[in-house]
């Protein structure tokens, strides 16, 4: 089937070439980082994770959101998702691959990464994250590929694949729950030390991931003449809207608990992010952009007169994805380190090398996604 990814028009090859250039730049930057050390990034002793881990966190959510099409299609037999379910599964595969690459890029000793498996440590959440992410990648790849292969041959998918697909549903929840546990179990990091972190991760993931699916469906319609259908998009729009509401509701809960209780440790990180603390507020404009842009996008998704127009729908989806990307990446991961355990505020600015590595990994993910979707579209349009 893979040969179908090797046939395409000029625009397709131009896109592939562009991605390969970005990948090459990313690999080059990674080589610099390997050679000199992570000191070439903007990370430091106080803010010891940066945009790599931020992308990782965001993308685990994108991967998990495949469940928003898999669940209704396979469990509730909603036929309107028939053409988009494979897009969801392949999006999950590419996002999971990017997650692993971002972890690898963040390691000080990437050559020792297999130590995680050589010395399995069940009390470490990283161990579980590695297990569930790899499992999820396999489930989606095997599930999606097998069903697609059967479709190409015009036969029913083999019976063993259904249980795997069913298993991928709770598994999707598990990957993002475990990812939240990476953060939520740390004493002294009060932005993370909250029971609603996992629910909020799921809500924001389902909002952003679903919005990305809608956007991909538009792109496929435009570039490949493959339409997932208005019905599917309509359903996804509603799902994204409600997931977005849940996300902002949970954010509101964080604000209430912190500020009504008036406990300084609970307030400090939020104060720093949204209002500035001790005269420092590096992220204040971005956080308000995220908050207001996100709420505006959700409103557009909720109002039928607006969301039924493609241009508004696309704008709202882009807005929601950007809002959650800022909130979950910059706000949560980097903001979580501030104030430091010694009550100080420091700055974090990603370096060019760091951003090039990041772009390179995104390009690898997009290349993989492009090729997988190319195969899927070819099979679907032929059958």
């Amino acid at each position, binding site marked *: 089937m893979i040969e179908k990814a090797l046939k395409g028009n000029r625009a397709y090859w131009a896109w592939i070439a562009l991605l390969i250039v970005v990948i090459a730049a990313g690999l080059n930057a990674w080589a610099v980082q390997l050679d000199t*050390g992570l000191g070439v*990034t*903007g990370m*430091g002793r*106080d803010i010891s994770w940066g945009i790599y881990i931020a992308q990782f966190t965001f993308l685990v959510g994108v991967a998990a959101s495949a469940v928003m099409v898999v669940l209704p299609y396979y469990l509730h037999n909603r036929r309107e998702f028939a053409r988009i379910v494979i897009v969801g599964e392949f999006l999950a595969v590419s996002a999971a691959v990017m997650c692993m690459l971002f972890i690898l890029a963040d390691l000080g000793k990437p050559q020792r990464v297999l*130590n995680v498996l050589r010395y399995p440590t069940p009390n470490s959440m*990283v161990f579980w994250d590695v297990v569930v992410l790899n499992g999820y990648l396999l489930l989606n790849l095997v599930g999606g590929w097998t069903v697609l292969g059967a479709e190409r041959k015009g036969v029913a998918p083999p019976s063993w694949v259904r249980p795997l697909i069913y298993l991928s549903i709770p598994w999707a929840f598990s990957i993002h729950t475990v990812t939240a546990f990476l953060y939520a179990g740390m004493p002294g990091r009060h932005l993370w030390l909250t029971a609603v972190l996992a629910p909020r991760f799921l809500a924001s993931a389902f909002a952003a991931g679903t919005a990305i699916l809608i956007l991909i469906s538009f792109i496929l319609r435009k570039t490949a003449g493959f339409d997932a259908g208005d019905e599917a998009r309509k359903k996804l729009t509603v799902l994204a809207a409600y997931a977005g509401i849940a996300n902002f509701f949970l954010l509101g809960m964080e604000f209430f608990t912190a500020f009504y209780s008036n406990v300084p440790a609970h307030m400090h990180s939020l104060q720093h992010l949204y209002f500035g603390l001790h005269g420092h507020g590096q992220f204040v404009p971005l956080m308000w952009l995220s908050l207001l842009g996100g709420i505006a996008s959700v409103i557009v998704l909720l109002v039928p007169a607006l969301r039924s127009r493609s241009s508004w729908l696309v704008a709202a989806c882009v807005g929601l994805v950007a809002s959650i990307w800022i909130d979950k990446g910059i706000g949560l991961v980097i903001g979580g380190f501030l104030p430091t355990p010694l009550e100080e505020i420091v700055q974090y600015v990603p370096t060019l090398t760091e951003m090039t590595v990041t772009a390179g990994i995104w390009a690898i993910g997009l290349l993989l996604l492009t090729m997988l979707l190319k195969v899927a579209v070819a099979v679907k349009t032929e059958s």
Partner: protein
Amino acid sequence: MKQDRREFLRKAGIGALAGIGALAGLNPLSALEKTDMSALSGKPVPGRTRWGMLIDTRSCTDGCRQCVTACHRAHNVPDFGDRKNEVKWIWKSRYEQAFPTSGTQFQKPELLGREVLTLCNHCAEPPCTRACPTQATFKRRDGIVAMDYHRCIGCRFCMAACPYGSRSFNWLDPRPAISEYNREFPTRERGVVEKCNFCSERLARGLQPACVESCPGKAITFGDLNDPGSTIRRMLSEQETMQRKPELGTLPSVFYII
């Protein structure tokens, strides 16, 4: 005078601190963030050591850095001269940084800004070892939280997990930044985490930690917390002491007299 002040504080019952102590289950009766020894080591195992440290901040001179220098020399700690790539095992913080959850209202004016030595607490319930995915950082039988630099993958989870900022990462190759190389202690590579090791290499030779030995004011007492007859235990039972962020349940092995 000291006794009077303490007496007064207790009677006045500094509310917030008492609340935190009670919440942590450490200290339901007393008003200060004092350590209740019975809650400390969980199950003291007879004959097994738990190394601990008591720092008397009153005898620690502002501006003096002798312990820091001694430690960093002994352990080949690099000095990059900038905050981002900084590596440090022991350093001085201000009182309100070291004890951010302690009350600062109406305290002795000289208390705020007083220099307090900060280092790894060798917690009895260390969140850093819990987070490590490879057991590259682990608790030894003598209570020291140690590092295996050859196993560490540099994921920096321990740094995120430590609520005291005790850990440093080698963002760059440390070797060029070591001013005086000590042949008796290994250097590290870039890409791994490091921190205070309570001078386990000196303890093995029957020596006190480098910081203790080098302190001109004799401000640091080191000893076995599990030995009721040790000097440190005697001092702990006689003095009001504090641990950093006791409300987090990490059970630090480093104590402070304020």
